[in-house]
């Protein structure tokens, strides 16, 4: 784990985190189903999922504010399931910042050091160090109430890393900030993660944020993990119909199995026939397909089965709404450079990109 420009003596690698069958119920309601997940040391892992999918609950169990109904949690080699929050030594950035309003910025950041019995001089040195990391050297004497939202968020970050925890938790830390500040702080958090080599568990429901920041993303749904993978893999090879629809824009289409053999599946969609290299399925059965709008192409064809319903110019590309022969709709993104737009009403033939189509049966990917 690189020490970067932080100073070699202070660098300490992050610790791995392991959820071993951790579940959480509130009464009869199961918020988190038995969860098995390994976060590698120094990894940036994001929890991504719709509201109520159990992201915060999972994070709170890691921080010690919720007690798991079942299962164990490990940080490094230590089982911390029964360790009180104060002795877990994990940094946490709360969505609401949770800065102490009666303490100055310096006192806020020094608080965890004070709790660990460091001398005044050591406290001041460490506070100065992290204030520099987050770029707030001149604000140490202010009270949180005298700072902007973005500055407060940085103080919260500084306070969470000043005691060099091996794991840093963040629950939607940027959701209250405007777009510009957000992307600025995103790169700052990435830089700090890189420099400190700390393990980060990050909760967000902003997929772009998860995509750009994470080493791996854990997509959650209804208290279960839908898929854990690197951003690219998640986008191009979703294992699950839900993930395909949740991450980025996707056309979801119903297709009927026309013919099936070993690793070839002939399907019928909207009057067209396509062949996918996937496992055998019962003939006449239903399959769900997902295909990204930027992966589909089409060409004008008076005998084509599809018609252009609408065209929208979106700067670098055009967005076509096509009506397929069976009445289904298909969104296509096409480069807008050079070519003339195909007018609404024109008949076209869709060029299905067999290699880019994911097929699902009962929600699970067939490939």
């Amino acid at each position, binding site marked *: 784990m690189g020490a970067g420009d932080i100073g070699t003596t202070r660098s300490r690698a992050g610790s791995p985190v392991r959820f071993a069958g951790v579940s959480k119920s509130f009464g009869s309601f199961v918020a988190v189903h038995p969860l098995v997940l390994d976060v590698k040391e120094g990894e940036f892992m994001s929890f991504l999922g719709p509201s109520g999918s159990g992201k915060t609950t999972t994070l709170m169990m890691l921080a010690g504010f919720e007690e798991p109904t079942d299962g164990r949690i490990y940080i490094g080699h230590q089982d911390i399931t029964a360790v009180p929050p104060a002795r877990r030594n994990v940094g*946490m950035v*709360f969505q609401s910042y949770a800065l*102490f309003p009666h303490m100055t910025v310096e006192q806020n950041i020094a608080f*965890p050091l004070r709790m660990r019995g460091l001398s005044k001089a050591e406290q001041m040195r460490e506070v100065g160090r992290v204030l520099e990391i987050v770029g707030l050297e001149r604000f140490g004497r202010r*009270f949180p109430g005298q700072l902007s939202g973005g500055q407060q968020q940085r103080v919260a970050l500084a306070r969470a890393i000043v005691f060099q925890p091996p794991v840093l938790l963040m629950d939607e830390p940027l959701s209250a900030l405007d777009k510009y500040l957000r992307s600025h702080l995103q790169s700052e958090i990435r830089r700090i993660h890189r420099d400190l080599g700390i393990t980060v568990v990050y909760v967000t429901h902003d997929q772009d944020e998860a995509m750009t920041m994470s080493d791996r993303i854990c997509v959650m749904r209804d208290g279960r993990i839908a898929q854990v993978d690197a951003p690219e893999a998640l986008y191009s090879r979703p294992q699950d119909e839900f993930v395909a629809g949740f991450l980025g824009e996707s056309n979801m289409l119903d297709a009927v199995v026309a013919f099936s053999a070993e690793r070839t599946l002939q399907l019928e969609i909207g009057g067209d026939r396509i062949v996918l290299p996937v496992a055998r399925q019962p003939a006449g059965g239903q399959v769900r397909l997902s295909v990204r709008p930027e992966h589909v192409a089409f060409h004008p064809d008076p005998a084509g089965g599809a018609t252009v319903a609408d065209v929208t110019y979106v700067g670098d590309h055009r967005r076509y709404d096509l009506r397929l022969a069976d009445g289904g709709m298909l969104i296509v993104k096409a480069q807008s450079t050079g070519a003339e737009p195909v007018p609404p009403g024109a008949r076209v033939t869709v060029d299905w990109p067999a290699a880019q189509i994911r097929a699902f049966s009962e929600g699970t990917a067939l490939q």
Partner: protein
Amino acid sequence: MNRLLRDPAFLVLPLALFLLVFYLLPVVQMLLRSTGADWSFRPFVDAFSSEVTLKVFWLTARIAVIVTVLTLALAYPLAYFIATTGERTAMVLLALVLVPFWTSILIRSYAWMVLLGQNGVVNGFLRWTGVIDAPVRMLNTTFAVYVGMVHVLLPFMVLPILSSLKAIDGRLVAAAENLGAGPGAVFRHVIVPLSMPGVLAGSVLVFVLSLGFYITPALVGGPSDMTVSMLIAGEVDLYRWDVASAIATALLIVTLVTLALFGRVVSLERIFGGAR
């Protein structure tokens, strides 16, 4: 009329009139009286050339300080318990604090006379348990004054502290724990400082109210437990209106100075009030 409706200031007009006639005018009259003829301030000279007056001011201030400290010492743990316990227990306790609040001070003071008397409930109980052999004199002592006043003033301390404790964001407690603070440290570094506005507000209320206390010390206190209000009443009984006005004015000044001093401290909360 339309204009009037848009500016709700006129709604306070009846109250303003009431206060003007029944409060402000008498106060002005009292202030004028206390200055004496030709601004000689003769009544002040008369009042404060007597050792008794100075002594009573001192006694009153001392009672007010002690009562404030005692009330705070009893109210803070109670408010903290109410703020952290379950909803039902909190309701019951709050009701117990408030019910005496709705009873007249006079009646409560009589109740203490019954309780603390030579043959009262407290003496009876202590003798029954064998702690004492002969009845202890409790009524008409300074002790009785403290008991009676603390009882009367407790709600004024409990309520502001409770409301400032309840206003503390639970996430701050979670944050402190996450940063390594055990229960004691959370209490000392987060709960106590953030409930200070309530402590100060309660203390000012109790202190200022104590300065003007009359009924309780008069009924349950001893001969030496003279308060400024009793002194004023005594002068009024003697028809020495000017001296009474002078003493009352002095009490008013002490009260206002207290409020101003506390006001300074409390305004500090503005600085960090904006963070939430």
